[in-house]
């Protein structure tokens, strides 16, 4: 039973309780009403809104309503997918091609018809050369054939697993119009700031520091959809203000945990508001201790094991995440339905054992009780990563490691860790995107150039693991490929190139009147065509 629940993506035990309070509200949502303006809290203002170039949740949150992908994630669809711009997709047995049948009668927001040429252009000119994630997944894509207006055939130079392409569809395949982008430099196109797409909402206006406004697309291909007339993203950079704005009915929805976790207990009791933990199953963040293996102490497996034993994962989940998270066992999160395996070496919280391991490694405590000092850089993006940094410092003090915290802003942190390697330990929140090959293997693989963010910049090199990753990337058979990634998890958990501590997702708080929310695993970053407001 508990296994089943975790597979459904409900994180941790206490999420169960919350889900049970949220369910009646979801179950009541039956007949969608048309019209209305949905006001949503936005905590950041991405400058580039082109999801084909910047595949990140901050961009998707706004532009996924404007620019659509070939397919979206789904709770019950085949392979966890539902059609969007593509109606079907099929991989060739040799892994050298994938054929997409596209939706008929789709129009761009400027009235021009959508066709396979747009898909070919987006794939070859943007996803492969420019997109942060597409660079890896589509690296062997050489051509996209368009035998007719509604067929696109992706051709690969090397066998590419169909499973990987499928898993990449929801996040990596935003299709943008060829006729808007074909002239001039793609990165400098004005449409990057005012996207043109096929989605249920048109980009209407942006007032810096105030709001983004999306307006209903009357020509949308979904018959009745969208239900809403307008979506306003109200910029509220201060995390404490979202809860107050919800209570004052100034906004109707705060996604991505804009309401601090510590406030959820109180806010769940406010009449008219619901706390929803569903709808983020496809967006799992991992709390990870990144390790600089250039430090001789940290290059010693015993020291890394000692650090793993020193961290009380249950405390982290219970105190820092207030139960809205799950403890991690390895590089694939527990809620992943395809790849996760629990059969990996684990590190129970055991300070005595950690101390013994450090003694064994030859790092005896000096007279002041310290063994050695480390520089610890917690990522500043989330409250939780910063708090975990404070916790880790204490956990390390208990085993005689003196960690000195260095705080940086986002840009300086990325430079310090991923370019300058000026860290010993760092706390990072990488994202698991449904397939280890998209953004997970890069965290341990060697040979990545300096400066690539969210990759192995700790100088870790393990020929065994590199070979395994290379093999999995060209294995076509789904079962064999999945098996290889289970092996990958075991090896990572055994050798600890990094330490996975917890995995968490986000919470939405909405007014009861907002219907059809959280109905797919990437809901917050999906197109919201069927979202509606009860009057």
């Amino acid at each position, binding site marked *: 039973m508990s296994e089943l629940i975790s597979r459904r993506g409900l994180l941790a035990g206490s999420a169960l309780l919350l889900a049970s309070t949220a369910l009646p509200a979801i179950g009541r949502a039956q007949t969608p009403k048309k019209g209305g303006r949905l006001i949503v809290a936005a905590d950041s203002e991405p400058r580039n809104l082109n999801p084909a170039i910047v595949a990140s949740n901050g961009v998707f949150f706004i532009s996924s309503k404007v620019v659509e992908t070939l397919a979206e994630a789904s709770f019950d669809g085949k392979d966890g997918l539902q059609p969007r711009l593509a109606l079907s997709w099929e991989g060739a047995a040799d892994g050298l091609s994938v054929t997409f049948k596209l939706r008929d009668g789709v129009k761009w927001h400027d009235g021009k018809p959508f066709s396979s040429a747009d898909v070919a252009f987006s794939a070859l000119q943007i996803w492969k050369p420019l997109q942060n994630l597409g660079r890896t997944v589509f690296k062997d894509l050489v051509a996209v054939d368009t035998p007719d207006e509604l067929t696109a055939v992706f051709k690969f130079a090397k066998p590419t697993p169909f499973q990987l392409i499928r898993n990449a569809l929801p996040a990596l395949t935003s299709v943008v119009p060829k006729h808007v982008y074909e002239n001039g430099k793609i990165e400098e196109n004005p449409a990057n700031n005012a996207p043109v797409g096929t989605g249920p909402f048109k980009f209407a206006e942006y007032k810096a520091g105030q709001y983004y406004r999306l307006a209903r697309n009357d020509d949308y291909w979904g018959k009745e959809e969208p239900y809403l007339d307008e979506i306003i993203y109200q910029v509220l950079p201060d*995390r*404490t203000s979202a*809860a107050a704005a919800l209570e004052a009915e100034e906004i109707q929805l705060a996604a991505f945990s804009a309401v*601090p976790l*510590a*406030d959820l*207990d*109180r806010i769940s009791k406010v009449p008219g508001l619901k706390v929803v933990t569903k709808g983020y199953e496809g967006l799992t963040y991992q709390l990870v201790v990144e390790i600089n293996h250039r430090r001789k102490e940290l290059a010693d497996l015993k020291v890394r094991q000692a650090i793993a034993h020193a961290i009380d994962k249950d405390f982290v989940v219970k*105190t*820092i995440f207030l139960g809205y998270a799950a403890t991690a066992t390895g590089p694939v999160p527990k809620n992943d339905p395809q790849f996760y395996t629990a059969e990996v070496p684990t590190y129970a919280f055991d300070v005595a054992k950690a101390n013994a391991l450090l003694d064994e490694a030859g790092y005896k405590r000096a007279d002041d009780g310290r063994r050695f000092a480390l520089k610890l850089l917690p990522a*500043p993006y989330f*409250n939780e990563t910063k*708090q975990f*940094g*404070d*916790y880790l*410092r*204490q956990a390390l*003090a208990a085993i005689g490691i003196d960690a*000195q*915290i*260095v*705080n*940086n*802003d986002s840009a*300086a942190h990325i430079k310090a860790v991923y370019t300058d390697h000026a860290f010993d330990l760092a706390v990072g929140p990488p994202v698991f995107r449904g397939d280890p090959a998209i953004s997970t293997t890069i965290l341990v693989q060697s040979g990545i150039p300096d400066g690539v963010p969210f990759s192995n910049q700790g100088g870790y090199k393990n020929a065994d693991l590199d070979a395994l990753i290379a093999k999995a990337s060209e294995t076509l058979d789904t079962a064999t490929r999945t098996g290889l990634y289970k092996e990958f998890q075991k090896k990572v958990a055994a050798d600890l190139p990094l330490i996975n501590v917890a995995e968490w997702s986000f919470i939405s708080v909405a007014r009861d009147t907002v219907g059809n929310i959280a109905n797919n695993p990437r809901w917050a970053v999906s197109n919201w065509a069927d979202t509606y407001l009860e009057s």
Partner: protein
Amino acid sequence: MRQLRRFFRTPETVAGAAILVLLVAMALAAPLLFPRDPQAIAGPALLPPFQDWSLPLGTDRLGRDVLAELFHGARTSLAVGLAAAAAALLIGAAVGTLAGFAGGVIDEVLMRVTDAFQTVPSFLLALAFVSIVGPSLGVVVAAIALGAWTGPARVARAEVLSICERDYVAGARVIGMHPLEIAFREVLPNALPPVLALSSVIVAAAILTEAALSFLGLGDPNRVTWGDMIAEGRAVLRTAPYLSIFPGIALVLTVLGVYLAGEGVVESTAVRRSLS
């Protein structure tokens, strides 16, 4: 003795002095009363105050003892306040004396530099300095001193200009003392009292600036600071307001205490001067 009595004449200065004494006692006693690392996890998270007498002011989001943090935070606040003020007075007095005593081009250059520093808001200067160099206690002190030395420099210069005309300075010149020796051994000590009168304002401002920097996440992360405590408490302001209120009260009282006591000192010395 009479001066001391004069100092304690007004209730404001008595209150200020009492707060300061309490604060210094807190700072000195912190390592004795709370020998453990104040950032160590001491109990369950978010324990409300006045529930458990081993943790009288409760705990924060990680379960750290708020009272221990307050005591150790007093150390940081006072250390930064005093060190920054001392540095600012030292730089200011040196620059002001040099400018006033040397005159001419040196005076012009030094005063234009002072102008340049004065036109930039001192908090902005501190913010920029810390974010470039990286937050640590020494850097924070330097950053605050960087914006605070201009006031003392101007006062010192004005004072030096008037003292330079006195007979004993002329006398020192006649017996062949080195100009720098005259400036720093004869002139500066006599120019100091009005400069020192600025110290209470500078200390109070330094404590506030340090708290603001910490609040913005630019304090030394390996030390407890009141500003950082307020910032951390802000995330749970609705559910655990005490986490921001206690350090907030401490901060207000400290600044008030420093200011009142400083005023008292200035007034009592002013009275003495006018009497003499």
